[in-house]
C-alpha cells in the first residue's frame, strides 16, 4: 500500500460533493416523502371507496419504485434528469434519481411511524373538534416525531450508499472516486480511503440520528 500517491485535494472535493448530494437530495426526499407518507396514512384508513382505490394505486406505484434496483432506476432516469437539471452527470445530475429512489422509501417509513401513534389520542383530538389538518399538524407529527427522525436517519444513510452507486453513471463524490480509481485503475488505496470516509460518514449520521430520537422520546 502506498498512500503517498493519493490526491488529497481531490479526496476533499469528492467528500464535499458527497455531502452536497446527500444534503440536497435529503431535503427534497423529505419535502416529497413526508406529505406522501401522510397521505398514504390518511387514505389507508379511509372508508370511502374512491379514496381506497386511489390509495391502492398510489401504494402500488410506491412499491414499484421501491422494488426497482436503484442502479436500474438511475439509468432509467437519465433522460428525466437531463430534462429537469440540464445534465445527467455530476452532483446535480444525480439528484433527481436519488430523490425518486429515496422518497417512496421514506414515505413508507413515515406511514409506519404515523401508524404507531396511539389511536386513542387521535380520537381524543377528534372529540375536541380538531379538523384533519389540525390532527396531522398538532397530533400525528409531534407524537410520531421520534419515529419520523429515526426514518430520516435510515433514509439519509441509504442515500449515502445511493450516492456511491451513482458513481457508476458519472455522478460525483466519493463513490465516483472509488469506482474510477479503485475499480477501473486498480488504485486500491483511493478506494480504501473513499470507503473508509463513507463508513465514518454513516457512523456519524447514525449517531446524530439516534441522539435526536432519544432527545424527543417522552415515553
Amino acid at each position, binding site marked *: 500500500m502506498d498512500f503517498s500517491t493519493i490526491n488529497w485535494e481531490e479526496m476533499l472535493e469528492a467528500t464535499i460533493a458527497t455531502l452536497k448530494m446527500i444534503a440536497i437530495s435529503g431535503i427534497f426526499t423529505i419535502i416529497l416523502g413526508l406529505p406522501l407518507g401522510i397521505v398514504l396514512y390518511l387514505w389507508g384508513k379511509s372508508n370511502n371507496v374512491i379514496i381506497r382505490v386511489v390509495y391502492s394505486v398510489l401504494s402500488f406505484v410506491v412499491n414499484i419504485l421501491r422494488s426497482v434496483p436503484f442502479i436500474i432506476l438511475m439509468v432509467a432516469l437519465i433522460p428525466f434528469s437531463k430534462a429537469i437539471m440540464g445534465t445527467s452527470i455530476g452532483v446535480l445530475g444525480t439528484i433527481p434519481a436519488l430523490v425518486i429512489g429515496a422518497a417512496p422509501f421514506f414515505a413508507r417509513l413515515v406511514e409506519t411511524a404515523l401508524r404507531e401513534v*396511539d389511536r386513542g*389520542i387521535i*380520537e381524543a383530538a377528534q*372529540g*375536541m*373538534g380538531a379538523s384533519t389538518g389540525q390532527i396531522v399538524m*398538532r397530533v400525528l407529527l*409531534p*407524537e410520531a416525531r421520534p419515529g419520523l427522525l429515526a426514518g430520516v436517519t435510515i433514509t439519509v444513510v441509504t442515500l449515502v450508499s445511493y450516492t456511491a452507486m451513482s458513481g457508476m453513471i458519472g455522478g460525483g463524490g466519493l463513490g465516483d472516486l472509488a469506482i474510477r480509481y479503485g475499480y477501473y485503475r486498480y488504485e486500491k488505496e483511493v478506494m480504501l480511503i473513499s470507503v473508509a470516509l463513507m463508513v465514518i460518514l454513516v457512523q456519524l449520521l447514525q449517531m446524530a440520528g439516534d441522539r435526536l430520537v432519544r432527545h424527543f422520546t*417522552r415515553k
Partner: protein
Amino acid sequence: MIELKDITKVYGKGSKQATALSALSLSIKKGEIFGVIGHSGAGKSTLIRCINLLERPTAGEVWVDGVELTALSQGQLQEQRRKIGMIFQHFNLLSSATVYDNIAFPLRLIGAGRNEIEQKVKELLALVGLEEHWNKYPAQLSGGQKQRVGIARALASDPDVLLCDEATSALDPQTTDSILRLLMDINSKFHLTIVLITHEMHVIQSICDRVAVIHGGGIVEQGEVAEVFLKPKHEVTKEFIRSETQSDGPLRQAIDAVQPGYTKSVKITFLGQKTYGSTLSQVVQGTGVHFAILHGTISTIKDVPYGQLIVRFEGPEGAVEATLTELIAQGLDVEVIL
C-alpha cells in the same frame, strides 16, 4: 340536554355483522350526573361515543342541547364537539406535550390568544390541583394525575357536557374516589352535565343522580340511583348490586332456618335521615314482638344515606302484622321475604 332517539349501531357488513346498539333511546337532563352501567361488550362504549359521534350510529338521531348532531356537516360537527368534553380510561394525553400544552390543546385548536390561553390553563391547573406539575410530561405523572390533566383539558373549551368513558377503571380505589369527588365538584360548580359509563356499581352509587343499565345493546332498566339501587328489577341490575353488597348464600340459610312460633322475615329499606333514626326499636316497644337482624348495610348513595336490614320478627301473629303495618306507616319500605 342530550337525547338519543332509536340509536342503532351495526358493525361490519354481511355475515360478519354485529349489532352493538339496537333502537336505544335515552334522555339526559341538564346538570345531572347520568351513569350508564353494563358489562364489557354490552355496548356502553359505543353508546358514549355515539353522543359526540366518534361513532356514527347506523340509524337514529343524536340531539345535544337542541342541536341534531347527526344532521350536521363535518365542519359544523367539529364546532359542536367543542361544547362536549370527553375523558378516557387511558387518558389519551399527548405524550409529546407537557401538562400545560395538553390543557392548552383545545384552546389552540380554536386559535385562542397567548394571554387567554395562559389565564385559562392556570385556572384549570388550580382547579385540578396540578399547579406544580405544569411543565411535566404525561409519562412523569401518576394515573390519577394524568386523569386530572384529562379533566382539565376537557374543561378548557368551557363545555356544557362532559363524557366520561370508564374514566376511573384504570385507577386504584383511593384515586378513583378523589377523581369522582373532583367530577362531583365540577358538576356543581359549573352546572355541567356529566355522562359516565362504568362497570362498577360503586361509581354509580358515589356520584350519579340517575342510572341506566345497558345489556345486549339496549337499556334494560333506568331511573333514580336510589330507586334502581335499592329495588332492582332486572336480573343484570341485581347482579351488579349483589357484587357490590354481599353474597347471599349464608343469608338465605339464616332466613330459611325453621323457627318455633310465628315469624316473618322482611327486608326494611331506610332512606335519607330515617337511616340514622331509631324507628325500628320504637315501633316494637311494648308490642311483645322481638326481632333478630340477619343482615344489614348502611351506606350512602351520592350524599344520601340509606340502610337496608334483613330482619326476622317473632311474636304473636297479630302483633307482628301490626308492627309491619306501623313500620310502613313510619315511611319505611318493607318487603316480606318469608
